[in-house]
């Protein structure tokens, strides 16, 4: 068997893990799973590609503008599409429809602006996408960087939840009313989380662009594989998402090489379905779910 599969799986898995973490960030205080997240990742890739490749901005300037832009758009989604629905009913699923609607709007808008042609994005020097051989695998410096950076990012995000505000977010996730009675303002936390989760999605798009190219069709596939990683790794659990991301990336690469590339999605789908049927809360589920 080809050991390159492992390399491909880890690179793709890192991206899925990043999408899953961006899901988790805004899921935690709201219990909302943003269906527009895939399109936000795509938007991040497109904006960065336009600024850095087409307009020739320095990469850090393009990065900052991309993160701010996607973050603010996601905040807007919270204010317009999510918060009003939650204000009416905390337990309804109206947000499924409203975030789907946001997804349609973004996808359509981006298509109108950029059209279907992918844009090639080069990583900032000294990183390159030139491949070389390492321990029998064909890899590039950028791929190694991406895998390592993903681990660093996941650990960094975990640290955020060790702060008092982070603990408050976890508190809201577990029992919103009890958090209210401790003086927590869930709306403020969810606005912040949407902004950060959006910026993180934008960052994921930026990081994905050199590997996948920036194209308007990225959204749906990343949405579903990001969801798969989040669900298999247990929603809200970022380390779980990292491991599940690798698991899915490698499974997908295996499926593509053993069967045919067309079966990638099907293999991932079956994996997720089996995991969720056996462990409905994922592989790393919460030990103290409410019993009442």
């Amino acid at each position, binding site marked *: 068997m080809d050991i390159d599969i492992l390399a491909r799986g880890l690179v793709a898995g890192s991206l899925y893990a990043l999408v899953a973490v961006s899901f988790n960030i805004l899921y935690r205080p709201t219990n909302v*799973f943003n269906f527009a997240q895939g399109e936000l990742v795509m938007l991040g890739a497109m904006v960065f590609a336009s600024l850095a490749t087409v307009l020739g901005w320095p990469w850090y300037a393009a990065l900052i503008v991309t993160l701010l832009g996607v973050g603010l758009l996601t905040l807007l989604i919270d204010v*317009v*599409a999510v918060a*009003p*629905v939650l204000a*009416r009913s905390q337990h309804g*699923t*109206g947000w*499924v*429809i*409203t975030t*789907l*609607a*946001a*997804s*349609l*709007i973004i*996808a*359509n*808008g981006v298509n*109108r602006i950029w059209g279907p042609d992918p844009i090639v994005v080069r990583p900032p020097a000294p990183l390159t996408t030139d491949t070389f051989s390492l321990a029998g695998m064909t890899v590039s410096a950028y791929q190694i960087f991406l895998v390592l950076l993903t681990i660093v990012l996941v650990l960094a995000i975990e640290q955020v939840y060790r702060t008092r505000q982070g603990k408050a977010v976890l508190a809201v996730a577990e029992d919103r009313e009890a958090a209210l009675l401790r003086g927590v303002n869930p709306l403020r936390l969810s606005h912040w989380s949407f902004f950060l989760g959006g910026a993180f999605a934008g960052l994921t798009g930026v990081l994905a662009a050199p590997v996948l190219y920036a194209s308007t069709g990225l959204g*749906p*596939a990343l949405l*579903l594989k990001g*969801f*798969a990683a989040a*669900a298999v790794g247990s929603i809200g659990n970022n380390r779980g998402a990292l491991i599940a991301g690798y698991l899915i990336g490698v499974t997908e690469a295996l499926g593509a090489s053993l069967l*045919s590339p*067309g*079966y990638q*999605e*099907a293999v991932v*789908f079956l994996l*997720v*379905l089996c995991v*969720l*049927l056996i462990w*409905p809360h994922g592989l790393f589920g919460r030990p*103290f779910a409410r*019993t009442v």
Partner: protein
Amino acid sequence: MAASVAKSRSLPGLLAQAALVVLVLALPLALDPNGYALFVATQLGVFVIAAIGLNLLAGYAGQVSLGHGAFIAIGAYATALLTVDHGWSFWLAALAGVVLSALMGVLMALPSFRLSTWYFAFITLAFAQVFEKMIVEWRGLTKGFAGVVGVQPPSVFGHVLDPAGVYWLVAVIAIIGFWLVNNLIRSRFGRGFVAVRDAPAAAQAAGASPARLKMLAFVIAACFAGVAGAFFAVQKTVVTPDDFTAEFSIFFLLTVVLGGLGTRWGPVVGALVFFLVPELLTGLESWRMMVYGAALLALMLFAPHGLVGAARSLFDRLRPKQTEPAAQPAETVPPEAAHVERPAISGLALEVKDLRKSFGGVVALGGVDLSVRPGTCAAIVGPNGSGKTTLLNVVGAYYRRDAGQVLLGGRETKGLSPQQIAGEGLGRTFQTPRLLGELTVLDNVLLGAYRRERASLAGTMLRLPAAASETARLRAEAMELLAFVGVADRADDLASETPHGHQRLVEIARALMGGARLIMLDEPAAGLSMTELDRLEQLIRRILALGATVVIVEHHLDLVASIASHVTVLDRGVVLASGAPQAVFADATVMAAYMGERALNEQAPGQAADDAATGDVSRPRPAPVEGA
């Protein structure tokens, strides 16, 4: 769901309505015979058929599916491949398509048993994406991108239908489908679906299995999609993978939401607006998705019940104001219950031995024994948090026990589901009444009869005479039970709009409707006024007089003292005392648990028993002191 529709329809009225429908349906023909309008109208009919099925699934049974397009694809491909390549007749091929689609529905239902709503929505979306890929991938079967070309129209009585004929056929099938689903949602299945959506515990208490009902909704929705798919193939004559993208699936859910989830006309209105409006706005073609997105967003924010819901509330506002119902007073005096003769009930015995249940570090039941003789009233009392409701929930199998025995009528109930135990004759009410707010009080009582109804699914959907007469009989019985509990005048009110005290009585009627032989009442007197309390006491006495066994959890000690023949006092998950009410309530330990005398003053358990007025108070073991 709308309140029950007026039954009296005159024949001329019906004829006029039918004529109107035919006229409207003939509009596309008049506009543009054999042309584009007809093509669009036929397609709309196909979408309406699929949307009706999805509305049943997502609107009534509450299962949000984003994979509906896949079912349509199965119907379409089966029909196209079998007719074109294998020379099957359309009707046989369509039947095969529907069967395949239904089988896929069974498979899709399985994850919904275990996953929460939106997890499930995601899984179905993923399924739609995978399905889209697989159509292309399985070239050998589906002919890949090229698709299946040259699907012929069906023939009726040896007559090959022209496009207008296909259109009329689709229209007739859509109307029949609408009628079938309407019959279904007004039946026990419809009540069951709504219960699964809004109060699964109430469905189980009525003996309905949420899993089976979900499965049923999936299969019916899949059948509708299969039929739609068959006509989709005929109407387009070509079936390609491009027709069945994941977006196509999402659109169907959006269609139903647009029209109004869980409204009868929602899928019809939604499909018409969703697929017709873009035809009228061809200039906006490239902005189509954005328009949909914006419209949906606006709708969810300002009219969560869709176009039909918005129209209804507008209609309500424009209608001449009726006298506003007065604000509900805190105390509502139910009318004197009518003297209704009810058949005798043979009560069930309940035997609980050493029952244990913990949640995390908290022991809710630490080995509880309870014995209730048939036809008697046993009370469980104790301070809040002592495990009373947990006991009821474990007995009813809503929680799984950690250890111990529960014998109902002498039979061990281990391994039975709550709905199976309900079927054995265990009825219950909930501390917070679990009524289906969108249904009428009468429908809520009828839900109780779920397990007793014999009418088949087909009989129900076709409104066959046997089913209709059973329905009439059960409605009469439900009315009788409402009179028995004293709220007959509320039968047609929405359950969400009935006062709290009445809701409790409706729950009792629902349990009786289910043929309960042992009824567990969880704090039935909480929040009742003195008058309501008297009525409740009378009602429980009359239920006992019929022969049923009653287990009551109640804080109101004088109610307990007056109706119960046996009292069990729980404290922190163990039995503190049990025996005849007079003896138990004279016991100093019990009063200490209730009124909270100091622990230091508390007498040793043995001493207290000696002080008790009569000697028949048993105290199994001293309460353990929780480790600090």
